[in-house]
């Protein structure tokens, strides 16, 4: 079973600081990590590869620095990594990102399953996984919470929806987007890190993946960000101290009064 795992490098969110004046993110000195929700996909890919053989390959589109994320994925246990990096890719929205990734997947050619994280914690759209499936004309099973088994060319999967779990049979090749419940990501090991350091990571540009120049990057993106502003969430917290019976009682009473006043109970 050959697997491709598209991943994204994102800023570590604990470290996110905003420039109050401009409303933009201060990227200076911010540490980058693999999108935490991609880790569940990486782990599932490793487990499937361990059970059913084949190769598991990470791909990522981003600046040269995104190579770190690919090496980390290899250190966890994926076999290879491919970086899509080209100035022409800059400014891509989800449509253009999915286009470039799907072109790279076409170039890789030999795949059975593409496993994406549910969404990235920075962009937070969850659109790239299904969009890749659309470009490749593949079925997409989204919000997968459990891999049950694989037999006779069909995967049996659980899909998390609003009121429960759908049980799906999905034929290969296909795209999965997975949620946290699907796996417990392992930590990278020393041997994995050594392998990752030595791994040869091809860097593909727009020409390498035979991308239509009008469909990549900002030029290929149907959407445009026209304005960014900072929402004002200003709350005056009324704090009540509860350190003994009397003060606890009073604090709880204060809470109920507020809920009543706002018609919440």
């Amino acid at each position, binding site marked *: 079973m050959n697997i491709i795992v598209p991943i994204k490098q994102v800023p*570590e969110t*604990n*470290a996110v600081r905003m420039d109050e004046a401009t409303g933009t993110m201060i990227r200076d000195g911010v*540490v*980058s*990590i*693999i999108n*935490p929700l991609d*880790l569940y996909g990486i782990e599932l890919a490793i487990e499937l590869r361990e059970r059913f053989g084949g190769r598991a390959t990470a791909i990522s589109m981003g600046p040269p620095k995104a190579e770190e994320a690919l090496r*980390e994925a290899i*250190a966890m246990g994926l076999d290879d990594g491919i970086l899509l990096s080209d100035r022409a890719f800059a400014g891509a929205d989800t449509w253009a990102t999915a286009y470039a990734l799907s072109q790279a997947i076409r170039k890789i050619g030999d795949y059975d399953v593409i496993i994406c994280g549910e969404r990235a914690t920075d962009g937070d759209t969850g659109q790239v996984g299904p969009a890749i499936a659309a470009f490749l004309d593949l079925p997409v099973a989204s919000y997968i919470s459990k891999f049950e088994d694989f037999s006779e060319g069909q995967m049996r999967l659980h899909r998390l929806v609003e009121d429960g779990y759908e049980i799906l049979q999905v034929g290969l090749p296909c795209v999965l987007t997975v949620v946290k419940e699907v796996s*417990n990501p*392992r*930590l*990278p*090991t*020393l*041997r*994995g*890190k*050594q392998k990752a*350091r030595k791994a040869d990571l091809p860097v593909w540009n727009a020409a390498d993946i035979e991308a239509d120049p009008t469909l990549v990057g900002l030029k290929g993106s149907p959407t445009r960000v026209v304005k960014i502003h900072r929402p004002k969430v200003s709350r005056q917290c009324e704090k009540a101290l509860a*350190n*003994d019976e009397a*003060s606890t009682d009073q604090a709880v009473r204060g809470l109920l009064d507020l809920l009543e006043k706002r018609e919440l109970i």
Partner: protein
Amino acid sequence: MSYNKVTPGIADELREIVGAKYVIYGDADRLEPFSHDEVAEKDYAHLPEAVVRPSSAEEISRIMKLANRERIAVTPRGAGSGLSGGAVPICGGIVLLMDRMNRILEIDPANMMAVVEPGVVTNEINNQLASYGLVFAGYPMSLETCYVGGNVAENAGGGKAVKYGVTGRYITGLEMVTPTGEIVSYGGKVVKDVSGYNIIQLMVGSEGTLGIFTRIIIKLLPLPKTAVDLLVLFRTVDEAIEAVPRIMTHGIIPTAIEFMDRLAIKTSCQYLHESIPYEDCGAMLLVEVDGFDSQQVEHEYETVGELCMECGAMEVYVADNATTAERIWKIRRNIAEAFKVTAPHQSLEDIVVPISQIPEMVRELERLSQKYDVQIPCYGHAGDGNLHATPVMNPAWTTEKWQEVLPKIIDDMFRATVRLGGKISGEHGIGHKRKAYLSLAMSEAEIDLMRQIKRALDPNNILNPGKIFDV
């Protein structure tokens, strides 16, 4: 030794010195938070009669003179995050709360020094220093809450002492108020200073019994740019501990070498629902290396990892980013909390033995565990032999039984520690929690020398009485 009470008249005098709103007096509810530190057992707590929050050395000087005149005990207090009862006013009297003296007075990059007041949260110093590319290398585990004044008073250690040493190493100057109320100042922004007795290092670790610090000069280091953590799983304690001198003698000085025994690992991992395969694991080491050059750090962690493999490590996990590092450190940091869930009573100790004696000490703890039918998880700073051996109350016991048996366990444990060439406290201090056991680690003559120093500086035994030893 008996002391006089803080009378309403004296409370008025205190209000006159620091301002009325900075005195808490006669309100047991508001005084209660200052009756204990982070030692959980209520027996160690004692209410103060007044809490006074000074803003300057002059105010403290006047308070001390008043206290000497009226024979009232004074206990200085930082954030109250101590683990030996150092800030607990066991003779009542006045608690001097240093929270208002919380300014970073100067950051001097040219001299690589910072001048701070004692009430600054330790981590805040480093937050401010980060943009200068500098760091204060004192690193107690409680750095997000503790005050730097308390770090100096307790000579705090923590997780990074293997490489960076303990707090005292970075203190080059102190302004302080003596127990009799004189304002004196030693040292300065100098790295070398042999002009007279080394009073600064006498004050470091004096547990608030010899002086009240009002201004602290700290030597800074360049801030390391990169760090990597290794979590190493071993089958046995011996294998894990054998790896420690192997690493240390290989020309690599890790920032931290933390040790966790089977019980500590199991309890924390179950509590965290951590999925790493720890079932067959008898001990873990958490090793951190840091530096300025990522290739150098890479080379070092790889060397450390290989050495651990040679010592029989089952697996070496590598964390070189915030996500994975947090996951690894979480296991170490949650041990105490995980035990609190199952057993509310535990006695967090911090014995220290020569590194080579760690396996023997761990075996000793196993014997004690069987003898007394209690669990004694052992974890801590293997790189400097400082172990948090923590007897945990048998859940089947009554609290009374626990209180009866615990001193025997501690006594046996400390005797074993001393027999192996160790000391009863590596970083938490004696306070009043371990006072009764100090004679296990020191001769009467040795304690008496300390007593004479205390008498010379504090003739009325006003400052933090009842700590370390009885005068």
